[in-house]
């Protein structure tokens, strides 16, 4: 939470602060997309938050003349339980807008020696450098007010910004109210995104500890930001990356698992939580994971429709069930999910976003096979996931008891307000999916995808691709609609860098999780109504679309031009950067009242 004071009278060198939702540009201003009347950098900032969570802001080093500077953020008293973490904000040039936007966050120590313009960012006219400050408030921090300062030194002159953190008694629950899921495909991109790491150390990268550590680092960056990370391990033709599946041997009756080594190196630390041992929120197993099951794995498609297909499938999947039990991997949902599409010319039916009615019986058959393979009393959570966009109503109706994890198109769900309740009453999980707002959009847009599932009563939101920053994210950025992290390789870091958008998403997840707790004392309808009123001045009905005429057509008659009525501009063009801050203020008001 944040208050501003002492608006700046900028002199030659100055250290200023901005709230998290006002992103600074490299010239000392707020990026145009985030600008709001009356908002300006200030010399002090007040952050307010609940325990077991982060509060954040920007610090801005402004220097009129080119030259060296030293920034020091003093730590909070050790006894406070507050930990400050500092990141340099990278300014991405976005050619389509002709502007710079900060997004990638490069971790730095509490004391930074640098100069402007920053040599590696190559902005000749740069006069300001933003730093993102995260402050972790520990679970056991005593509620109260804590202060520290940050000091900028330039040519012997000092400029100081004070940072006050007000810690509330409330504690953010460990279980998030919504799961923000971040998707990606395979690992082939890791070698190209990490040329230094992949070529160092000798040996084969894809068999090395560097490789598996890097995969775990990707999981960790999302985990630390209260999100999930999905990495699909097979292609549209059924090719399975060796790190995503146990090695198989034999055929027909003799088909079975020959070697778990790579699978266990990959998934062991994720499924027992040890990959997250050093995180603030502590180690827990990942919530969800794709299985490598596809029409060609573990059973060969050569035997489809024959007894051998069932035998191979059951042999292998039942062995997986046993292995997972032996390992104690019983907290994660293992997803049987078919991602292939017939347009990629390897199988005759669509697994992903099925549209053709004659494709649907395949799903029933795989459900039957899964039931055969996994014993009824298994504590391992095998689930059948379907991503649905053409015929959600049909599939909800026809696949009760078959599909138990639904990833639905946002537009398809928008006119079915009762669908989440229906599905969840069966014990199913329900997500919607979509893209990621680009850096050129106001900063609050990334929080819209956090609020929407909570308002609808779904489990979360899947961002369909979150690790593809494009060919040159550093100097010719395409906007980041397919990434929320950046490769750290160019900074000598063998791990992904978080982004400002990921941090804003995390802080929103914290907030909505805390807000959700007030269901225990206040009607959820009231909480929702007030949150969305503050977010964008809307009412609950505005978050749904009227049932479109095409909804009753055969899916084969539909086109992608058939979309529900567009939501109000309040959800997009008119959604200002401060939208989430208003929701947060409501949540903090509730939290302050809590004893």
């Amino acid at each position, binding site marked *: 939470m944040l208050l501003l004071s002492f608006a700046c009278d900028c002199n030659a060198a100055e250290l200023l602060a901005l709230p998290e939702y006002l992103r600074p540009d490299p010239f000392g201003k707020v990026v145009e997309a985030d600008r709001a009347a009356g908002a300006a950098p200030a010399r002090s900032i007040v952050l307010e938050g609940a325990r077991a969570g982060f509060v954040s802001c920007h610090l801005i080093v402004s220097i009129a003349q080119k030259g060296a500077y030293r920034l020091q953020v003093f730590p909070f008293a050790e006894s406070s339980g507050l930990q400050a973490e500092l990141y340099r904000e990278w300014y991405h040039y976005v050619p389509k807008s002709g502007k710079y936007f900060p997004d990638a966050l490069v971790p730095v120590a509490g004391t930074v020696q640098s100069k402007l313009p920053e040599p590696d960012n190559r902005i000749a006219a740069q006069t300001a450098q933003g730093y993102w400050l995260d402050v972790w408030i520990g679970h056991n921090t005593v509620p109260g007010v804590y202060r520290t300062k940050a000091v900028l030194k330039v040519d012997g002159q000092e400029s100081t910004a004070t940072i006050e953190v007000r810690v509330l008694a409330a504690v953010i629950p460990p279980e998030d109210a919504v799961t923000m899921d971040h998707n990606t495909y395979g690992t082939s991109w890791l070698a190209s995104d990490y040329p230094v790491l992949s070529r160092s150390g000798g040996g084969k990268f894809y068999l090395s500890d560097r490789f598996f550590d890097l995969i775990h680092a990707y999981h960790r960056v999302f985990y630390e930001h209260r999100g999930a990370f999905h990495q699909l391990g097979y292609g*549209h033709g059924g*090719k399975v990356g060796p790190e995503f599946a146990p090695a198989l041997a034999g055929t027909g009756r003799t088909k079975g698992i020959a070697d778990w080594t790579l699978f266990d190196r990959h998934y062991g630390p994720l499924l027992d939580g040890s990959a997250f041992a050093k995180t603030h929120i502590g180690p827990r197993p990942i919530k969800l994971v794709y299985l490598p099951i596809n029409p060609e794995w573990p059973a060969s498609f050569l035997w489809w429709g024959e007894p051998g297909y069932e035998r191979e499938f059951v042999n292998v999947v039942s062995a997986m069930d046993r292995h997972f039990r032996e390992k104690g991997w019983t907290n994660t949902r293992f997803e049987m999910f078919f991602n292939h599409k017939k347009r*990629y010319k390897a199988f005759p039916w669509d697994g992903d976003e099925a549209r053709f009615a004659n494709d649907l019986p395949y799903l029933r058959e795989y459900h039957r096979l899964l039931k055969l393979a996994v014993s009824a009393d298994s504590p391992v959570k095998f689930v059948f996931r379907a991503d649905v966009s053409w015929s959600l109503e049909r599939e909800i109706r026809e696949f009760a008891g078959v599909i138990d994890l639904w990833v639905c198109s946002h537009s398809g769900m928008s006119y079915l307000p009762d669908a989440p309740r229906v599905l969840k009453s069966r014990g199913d999980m329900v997500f919607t999916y979509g893209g990621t707002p680009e850096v050129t959009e106001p900063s609050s847009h990334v929080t819209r995808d956090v609020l929407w599932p909570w308002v609808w009563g779904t489990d979360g939101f899947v961002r369909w691709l979150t690790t593809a920053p494009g060919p040159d994210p550093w100097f010719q950025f395409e906007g980041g609609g397919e990434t929320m992290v950046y490769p750290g390789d160019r900074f000598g870091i063998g791990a992904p860098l978080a982004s400002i958008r990921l941090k804003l998403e995390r802080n929103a997840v914290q907030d909505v999780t805390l807000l959700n707790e007030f269901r225990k004392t206040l009607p959820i309808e009231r909480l929702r109504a007030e949150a969305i009123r503050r977010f964008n001045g809307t009412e609950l009905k505005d978050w749904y679309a009227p049932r479109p005429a095409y909804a009753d057509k055969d899916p084969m008659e539909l086109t*992608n031009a058939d979309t529900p009525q567009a939501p109000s501009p309040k959800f997009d063009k008119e959604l200002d950067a401060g939208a989430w801050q208003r929701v947060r203020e409501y949540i903090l008001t509730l939290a302050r009242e809590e004893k």
Partner: protein
Amino acid sequence: MKPGMLMLWVAGATLLAQTDPAAELDRVARTATAMVDGDVCQRIQTKRSLEFLFKEDSRDKYVASDNFDVDHEAYIQTKKTLMRLSKLCAGECDVNLWMPLAADPRQIQILIRNVYEMSSFWQWGKLFQPTPAEMKRVLSTGERVTVRGASRKISVLAPAYNSLGDIVGLVEVVAEGQRDLQENVK
């Protein structure tokens, strides 16, 4: 051919296959021409799907791919044949099916790919693409053509005939000297 000469021929062919992987792929490709049923291949893509294949809609850029569809029986029968053919390779290979498009003979589409997701020609994600010269040669002459590409990739193209004796498509038998195990896992 006398038995002695036959053994000599087999030994020679085996030796050739050991020293030149293309020779082995060529042997598989030759078998593919005998085994792949061109009439069945012609029934794979549905009529409706073909009607959508060249459609463009400024409001729906996926109109062709979202309507791509196949006859399951014909597809599965042919895919299984291709999979069996790939078992004739000593190492890992794929046998893909390519079909020219009657509506535009300059274009060709891959219609069936297989598990290693290898091809010297497929432009990833394309429904159809301009017919490469090597494929034109196979379709017009019935010759088998060997193509050596990047990543020590070798493809042998061979014709597929229907019951009228027409060349209606071709198979691509493809292997890589050094497989990229992570490629195309997407």
